[in-house]
């Protein structure tokens, strides 16, 4: 028998508390770019720094933010979802079909529209996880299909929710005075998604799959089922975004959506989530989405000629991501 005593050689358990503080610090630092940009605009423009504009920025972040939060899950698994833009449009149309065309009450129609997003996600998940089609292709195909179906189902015409005043309240109403409900909803789903991602089995497996899918599978986790589940879950956010955008616009616009996927993915990546999977956070995604909104808003408020706005936007994103990287390396 081995009769061996460990001779104290235990390694120093530093890390622990220090590590936790360090990682929190990094997240705070990630805010820095956002704060710097916000401060800059506040100084150069008399119109920028106001409560109203603050809310306007948040309001304009809602749709992209919702899509970005959902797709953060998919990206952390190492996947990508190009169908969220046109998928959102299709969900908006479905919401119109349910509520306006079929006359379902809001309490039924809205959940159905959100579930429809989940259904699209489910199909994506099946294509990716079971049929092993690369996520880029599977979701590109879904993007095309959703684009077409949105036009077919709406007869290429916006579906107006004029007769469902409650619907518009989903986005524009004020449960809390001066704060649009849409902003509250964004905050709520961000918190829920954050908790799910960090505190639950779903989140842990999301990271594990993205980190090393084969090792996760060999560890006895039913990776295929979880992947299908994660895509479907992310699809719910597409559905919700569809509801929110149509509530905000008062109509389901069948063609408004293409291109949103790129913005949402950009928000996720600016927020520090890696497209190769295994890393990422909801708070990062929110910050990424806000950086884009603040830049869009600020540049416009400064009346920068529009063709220059994109040039500046591109440069600032580069600089923000670059300094963020430097900071992380040094932190």
């Amino acid at each position: 028998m081995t009769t061996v005593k460990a001779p104290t050689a235990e390694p120093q358990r530093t890390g622990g508390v220090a590590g936790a503080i360090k990682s929190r610090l990094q997240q705070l630092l990630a805010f820095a770019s956002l704060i710097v940009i916000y401060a800059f605009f506040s100084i150069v423009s008399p119109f920028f720094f106001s409560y109203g504009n603050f809310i306007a920025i948040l309001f304009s972040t809602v749709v992209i933010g919702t899509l970005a939060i959902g797709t953060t899950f998919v990206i952390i698994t190492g996947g990508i979802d190009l169908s969220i833009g046109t998928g959102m449009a299709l969900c908006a149309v479905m919401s119109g079909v349910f509520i306006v065309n079929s006359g379902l009450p809001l309490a039924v129609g809205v959940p159905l529209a959100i579930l429809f997003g989940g259904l699209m996600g489910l199909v994506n998940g099946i294509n990716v996880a079971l049929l092993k089609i690369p996520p880029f292709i599977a979701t590109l195909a879904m993007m095309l299909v959703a684009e077409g179906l949105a036009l077919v189902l709406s007869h290429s015409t916006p579906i107006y929710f004029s007769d469902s005043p409650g619907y518009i309240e989903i986005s524009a109403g004020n449960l809390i005075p001066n704060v649009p409900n849409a902003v509250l909803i964004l905050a709520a789903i961000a918190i829920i998604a954050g908790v799910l991602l960090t505190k639950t089995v779903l989140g842990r497996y999301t990271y594990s799959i993205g980190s090393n899918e084969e090792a996760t599978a060999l560890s006895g986790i039913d990776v295929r089922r979880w992947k299908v589940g994660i895509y479907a879950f992310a699809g719910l956010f597409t559905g919700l975004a569809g509801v929110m955008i149509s509530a905000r616009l008062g109509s389901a616009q069948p063609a408004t959506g293409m291109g949103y996927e790129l913005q949402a993915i950009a928000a996720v990546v600016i927020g520090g989530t890696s497209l190769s999977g295994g890393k990422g956070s909801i708070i990062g995604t929110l910050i990424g989405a806000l950086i884009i909104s603040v830049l869009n808003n600020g540049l416009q408020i400064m009346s920068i000629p529009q063709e220059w706005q994109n040039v500046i936007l591109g440069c600032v994103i580069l600089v923000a991501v670059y300094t963020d990287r430097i900071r992380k390396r040094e932190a």
Partner: protein
Amino acid sequence: QGGDTGGGGGGNGPLIAIVSKGFQHQFWQAVKKGAEDEAAAKGARTTFVGPATEKDVEQQVNMLTNELAKSPKALGFAALDSRAAAPLLQQAKSQNIPVVAFDSGVDSDIPVTTVATDNKAAAAEAAKHLAEQIGGQGKVALVVHDQTSLSGKDRRDGFLDWMAKNAPGITVLPPQYGGGDQLESANITKSIIAANPDLKGIYASNEGSAIGVIKGVQESGKQGLTIVGFDSGKAQIDAINSGLMAGAVTQDPVDMGRQLVDAALKAINHEQLPKRIDTAYYWYDKTNINDPKIQAALYQ
């Protein structure tokens, strides 16, 4: 020209914020130029923004929000979807900012006036000329820039309606949509020509579509097609001069910009305005293209 401050005109004159349906395309650039010229002449300032495509309804709403944050003295607005902007128009009203609608009507009683062309009537004019040129018989195709935006639908439906009503001998193929992308429109055109050897004429609903159709016809080598277009731009003007294209309908975007600023300034001064200010549209072809009135409406 816009200059680096982005404001047309100069000094400390009243600020007129213009939210358009687009900014990259020449049509909107011409509106912008008209607005800036007029503002410069009258000592006002303008800003001009528009979403990247006519599908970006939400982006336009955000832009409208941001412009209102600047508390302009008046707002020029070409709505992609009027109802989507209703709450913001309400807000403009409560901030006492007069709204001037342009390009297409805004479905609301808030705008003090609407400076617009009747797209449907203009499209009908194009249909009429096409029908005449092919003798009221045969197959025609449409290459439309968009199937959901108001301008796309009006320019499509104006054409289709006129044909349905007035040209029983003409078969209209299902409209095809090229997104206003020249290359895609060219490829579509070639497919249409390949699939319909007996095609007589093609209608293109905006400048990008028209350039594509011209290219597609040229590349297919098909002779004897009658092409009618919409808007202007050098490619169409050249094609008309060379006889490749029969003619086109154009609005007068520079004038639209001028009238817009003019109306906005009047609204700021609480002057009375008519409910609607019609900017003209013109049919132009080889015969009248050098007419000064037409020339003024065309952009290169």
